[in-house]
């Protein structure tokens, strides 16, 4: 998708340092100012500004009919967003935590994903569903899950995940401009990490992956909260003389594996990193395609560092569940040892 041609009435002037949460907030604000049909809806998004304050101040500035504190029902949030979209609105739904998307799963899978197809393109579904996802924040059950593969599996949905404040700002606006439904996964444990945002700079296209760090020994492909972990692992590996390339996938459906193939053809090795359970997941998909496309370039099997095929454990065990720098490096070592 081409970068949107944007007038940016409130785009903050000049470069500023923002967190991911703030980047999302500014992105929403810019989209709402640009298009009066953009709505924000969800539980506690109004007065409270969302439990992570991503929608902070929006209701005050745009009013109760642009920023809807909805009744407590996810199926209701998604289902009514679909109706609003049919009516010409562009709803941005907030799901409070990953584990609470499931009451809305039926509407997402049965209607949101399929209406464009069912209506032979007569109905557009420009709905964004924002999901703070992933673990590492010491939360109780249902607050740390990574269900993105479930959505990537569904035809008709687009699935993306940002990993830094600049992408947060741009990708959210681009997702809102997209006429297809976009599941927008936000790395909640990175919400307060900062980056330099220059609203005048040209954004990368939404459905594209990006090489964040160049290297020649091995490729790490990852997304969302694990991007930072992989960058740290690459820095650590450098001390051991290994030069790792890190690709931020950014889009999970459609996958943009071109940069990954290209990278693997140079490095000969790939480790895919994700917090999600491995079975039948986005990481399995990547491993399959890379071995099909890059078979003769591979020096080692594609390896994965992921969560486990278990329910997310109590938080005192999450350190073991989540890939960390050491587990990533362990996979790197195993790959290099082939």
């Amino acid at each position, binding site marked *: 998708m081409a970068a949107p041609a944007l007038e940016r009435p409130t785009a903050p002037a000049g470069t500023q340092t923002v967190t991911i949460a703030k980047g999302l907030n500014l992105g929403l604000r810019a989209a709402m100012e640009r298009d009066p049909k953009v709505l924000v809806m969800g539980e506690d998004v109004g007065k*409270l500004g969302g439990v992570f304050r991503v929608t902070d101040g929006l209701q005050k500035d745009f009013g109760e009919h642009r920023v809807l504190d909805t009744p407590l029902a996810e199926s209701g949030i998604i289902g009514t967003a679909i109706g609003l979209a049919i009516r010409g609105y562009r709803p941005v739904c907030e799901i409070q935590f990953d584990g609470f998307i499931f009451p809305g799963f039926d509407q997402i899978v049965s209607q949101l994903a399929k209406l464009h197809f069912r209506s032979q393109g007569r109905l557009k579904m420009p709905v964004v569903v924002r999901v703070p996802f992933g673990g590492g924040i010491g939360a109780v059950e249902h607050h740390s899950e990574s269900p993105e593969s479930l959505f990537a599996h569904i035809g008709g949905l687009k699935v993306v995940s940002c990993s830094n404040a600049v992408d947060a700002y741009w990708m959210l606006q681009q997702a809102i401009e997209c006429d297809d439904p976009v599941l927008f996964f936000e790395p909640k444990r990175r919400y307060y990490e900062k980056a330099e945002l220059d609203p005048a700079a040209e954004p990368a296209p939404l459905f594209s992956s990006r090489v964040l760090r160049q290297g020649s020994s091995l490729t790490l492909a990852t997304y969302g909260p694990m991007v930072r972990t992989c960058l740290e692992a690459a820095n650590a590996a450098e001390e051991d003389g290994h030069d790792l390339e890190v690709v931020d996938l950014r889009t999970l459906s459609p996958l943009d594996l071109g940069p990954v193939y290209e990278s693997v053809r140079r490095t000969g090795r790939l480790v895919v990193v994700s917090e999600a359970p491995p079975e039948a997941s986005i990481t399995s998909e990547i491993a399959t395609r890379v071995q099909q496309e890059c078979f003769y370039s591979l020096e080692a099997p594609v390896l994965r560092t992921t969560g*486990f095929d278990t329910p997310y454990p109590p938080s*005192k*065990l999450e350190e073991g569940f989540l890939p960390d720098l050491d587990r990533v490096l362990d996979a790197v070592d195993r790959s290099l040892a082939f």
Partner: protein
Amino acid sequence: MSPERWTREGHSGEATDTGPPAATAAKPTREQVIAGLRATSEGGADLVQLLTPEGERVSHPDFDIDVTDAQLRDLYRDMVLVRRTDREGNALQRQGQLGIWVPLLGQEAAQIGAGRALKPQDMAFPSYREHGVAWCRGLDPTEVLGIFRGTDHGSWDPMATGFHLYTIVIGNQCLNAAGYAMGQRFDGRVGDDDGEATMVFFGDGATSQGDVHEAMVWAAVYDAPLVFFCQNNQWAISEPTERQSRVPLYQRASGYGFPGIRVDGNDVLASLAVSKWALDECRHGNGPVLVEAFTYRMDAHTTSDDATRYRLADELEAWKLKDPIERLRVHLVREQIAGQDFFDSVEAESDELAARFRDYCFNLTDPPPQRMFSQVYAEQTPQLAEQEREYLRYLDSFADESLAGGVH
């Protein structure tokens, strides 16, 4: 308003004397809607109350109850001890000992009244704030700590205690409770005083969830012995009850074909009386019943919440005057049912309990890494067994390393 009106045959769909619009075909008038909304925020004329905020005993034509002095003292003790552990939970979170705490401050009477109405053969399905009901089911208060410290997802045996695990996904437990209650009926365990019943706990926000609606449909059409116990504490995090409904919540029951009763949730006697009645109806096969305990969340939603962003201080002050513990204390003193000795001894007991609660928390050990892989399935899969072996081997490699580091 008499309970007899709600027998299956006699139930007209008109659940209150003020004539709710629910079952009439005509659209509610503007006045009716406004009256409904006011009742949403002020309790309304249908509120069952047996103890006024000033601690005076009043009677009610349908829901009166005989309680001995000893029982009154016990109810007081229950509420004080439960509040004390709740406050301790809050403090432990502030000290970094717990990841989060979900306070029940203000909801003690609703929970103790409901909890003490349950019989051993009954089953309770809690949400996540039901520390008072847990207490009534015989759980030690320390048993919920692991959830909030992150060492487990619930340490108690649901079947042995008659208390299901806490449920965090809003409304899910209502359908599970409906199914359990259907089972009680299918097993022929309803019909007399010794019959079984189930009680499910959820909040005012939860009433918007499809699961809760579906649970009401199921319970109704299968005549399940299920008491829906809604604690309307006025807020779902930042959203007021008006954001969930335009009629008082208890009135919704008539649309499903069973009685709905609103009880003063800050009045432990009324909560006990109405819960007993509702459970007995279910025991005898006349369920389901919806009870709306009209109460107030006096603390933030959880320790992660900032209630000052959405709630007015005045509102909190007004509700403090209805404090459930204070009103029973005043009653006990005024009627000379309890003297200073009693209050002192409850205070001393709560100090001891708080200390034990704290100690237990400090000493909770983290589960071993194997826990992650155990009990995922009744029959372990080869795949998971392999993931466990791999992971333990990986952990072992560190043990070797640190040993090696020590040697060299």
